[in-house]
């Protein structure tokens, strides 16, 4: 990992930006596919849980308000993870596309960090898109400016948690097992991340509360709830931010290690 310590020269910065530009260019050219990939799932969750169940009287008044921040968290984490994990498995596994970037005059760690930056950007865009969609589907969304810094911090760390998960999974899952990613990783992460329920309310289901406390996404959901619907009981924001910072550090360290293992024999 000696390459990590090298400061970026101007040519290396140019190479980093060129690799990032390539990813943005590809996304831009495939915009409809990008939108479908990132928006459909939270859109349906929002529609069914926030609108349909509420209209039919199966959920209490106000449920949509506590669901909305949770869905923002879910979009931030899942988009970051998907953006990074699936292409990376393919690039290391069968397309070998990444080789041209690994041979660019750029430290290997920065090829990995570019993926994190790009995944984070993409998931930020996807999450912000949920705001107008929420207004359209629900009629109104919970919003307050006084906690905006907390909202931004939670969102930003959420996208990084997703990207970190993506880097870890993308470098550790063999191509033949890519289907298992969905069933064994995505689905549990999706439903144990407190996006559909506030964490303190799980006290009546103690074992599940413990399980959800192990999922970093829980702290994204809770931080965003703290920012947008502070009247709903939630985990204290500073705890959320500390846990998220720790999670990002651990995930990126593991992910970078995995990336080196795949990139250099």
């Amino acid at each position, binding site marked *: 990992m000696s*390459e990590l310590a*090298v400061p970026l020269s101007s*040519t*290396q910065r*140019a*190479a980093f930006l*060129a*690799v990032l*530009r*390539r990813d943005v*260019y*590809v996304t831009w050219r*495939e915009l409809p596919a990008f939108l479908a990939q990132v928006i459909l799932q939270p859109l349906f969750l929002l529609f069914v849980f926030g609108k349909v169940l509420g209209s039919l009287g199966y959920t209490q008044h106000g449920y949509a308000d506590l669901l909305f921040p949770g869905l923002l968290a879910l979009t931030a984490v899942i988009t970051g993870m998907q953006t990074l994990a699936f292409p990376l498995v393919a690039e290391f596994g069968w*397309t*070998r*596309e990444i*080789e*041209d*970037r*690994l*041979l*660019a*005059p*750029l*430290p*290997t760690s920065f090829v990995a960090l570019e993926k994190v930056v790009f995944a984070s950007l993409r998931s930020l865009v996807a999450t912000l898109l949920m705001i107008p969609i929420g207004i359209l589907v629900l009629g109104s969304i919970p919003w307050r400016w006084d906690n905006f810094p907390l909202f931004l911090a939670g969102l930003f760390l959420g996208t990084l948690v997703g990207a970190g998960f993506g880097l870890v999974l993308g470098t550790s899952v063999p191509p033949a097992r890519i289907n298992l990613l969905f069933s064994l990783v995505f689905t549990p992460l999706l439903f144990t991340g407190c996006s559909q329920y506030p964490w303190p309310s799980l006290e009546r289901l103690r074992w599940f509360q413990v399980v959800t406390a192990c999922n970093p996404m829980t702290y994204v959901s809770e931080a965003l709830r703290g920012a947008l619907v502070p009247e709903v009981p939630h985990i204290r924001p500073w705890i959320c931010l500390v846990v998220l910072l720790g999670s990002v550090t651990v995930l990126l360290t593991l992910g970078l290690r995995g990336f080196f293992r795949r*990139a*250099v*024999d």
Partner: protein
Amino acid sequence: MDAAPTVEVADLVKRYPKAEVNAVDGVSFAVAPGEVFGLLGPNGAGKTTTVGVLTTRVRPTGGSARIGGIDVVADPVQARRQLAVVSQRSNLDRAISIRDNLVFHAAYHGVPAHERAARADELLEQFGLLERAGDRPDFFSGGQSQRVMIARALMHAPRVLFLDEPTTGLDPAARLFVWDRLRELRERGVTLFLTTHDMDEAAALADRVGIMDTGRLLALDTPEALMRSLTGETTLELTADGPADGDVVDALSRLPTVERGERLQAGPPGAGPLRVRLYLTGEASALVAPAAALLADRGLQLSDVKLGTPTLEDVFIELTGRTLR
């Protein structure tokens, strides 16, 4: 070799984790600027690992490797500016057109923006790809992908181009096209480093050939010198019709300049024509008349004569006792 070598490897050793033997086991050589260097050997000989170290993708266990004087382990980023790699399998970026493949590659390597498009068009033209510049590489044939990858590799004007099995699996026309382009590159002074298990390719392109097996460099010289080094310089293959006599091969082997002779047996003994290959230390043509006379004495009529020089494959067999494939 007056100029400083473009590629320099000294006592290179690589042992993969959990492996019991070294994949590369103390290899040293140097490649001069503008030289076409071929590393010949069967799969698993250590060629790919050697190139992996030189192209910063494999960390050596011991020894050193330099590209243009830059230590690839100490400064991989600088080393990557000097080199380009064309792999055996396509690793083109499938999400973008082949022109974009070239242009983005140039951008990664810091080629100024205003030069990228012109250089890409020039190379696409040279490699006969201009009409397909806007296509994505998904449905390209092996030969087309190979050409795109070589063109892409040249976008940042590398000092040395590494090509792994550049024409394995290509049809003969595509193979000749790639060979011609590589010869043009040599004329322009680009150093080429080929790895191949195809002796024809090595003999056709390389100025010098290193023969590798089980992690070691067994021989290194020009293809001609390697072939001359064989004990028998030439071979003479004789086919004769008629009742084959048991000791006719022994008799032929006792002729002057014959090192040894062997009977090439197609069917069961006694069936079909007699075929004999003689390994000679002298000119093969000088031996045709005495051999024909000897056969005629025994009532055999010479029906076919083949004069042969040894190939790199023979050199490999001589060195390792095995065939290349």
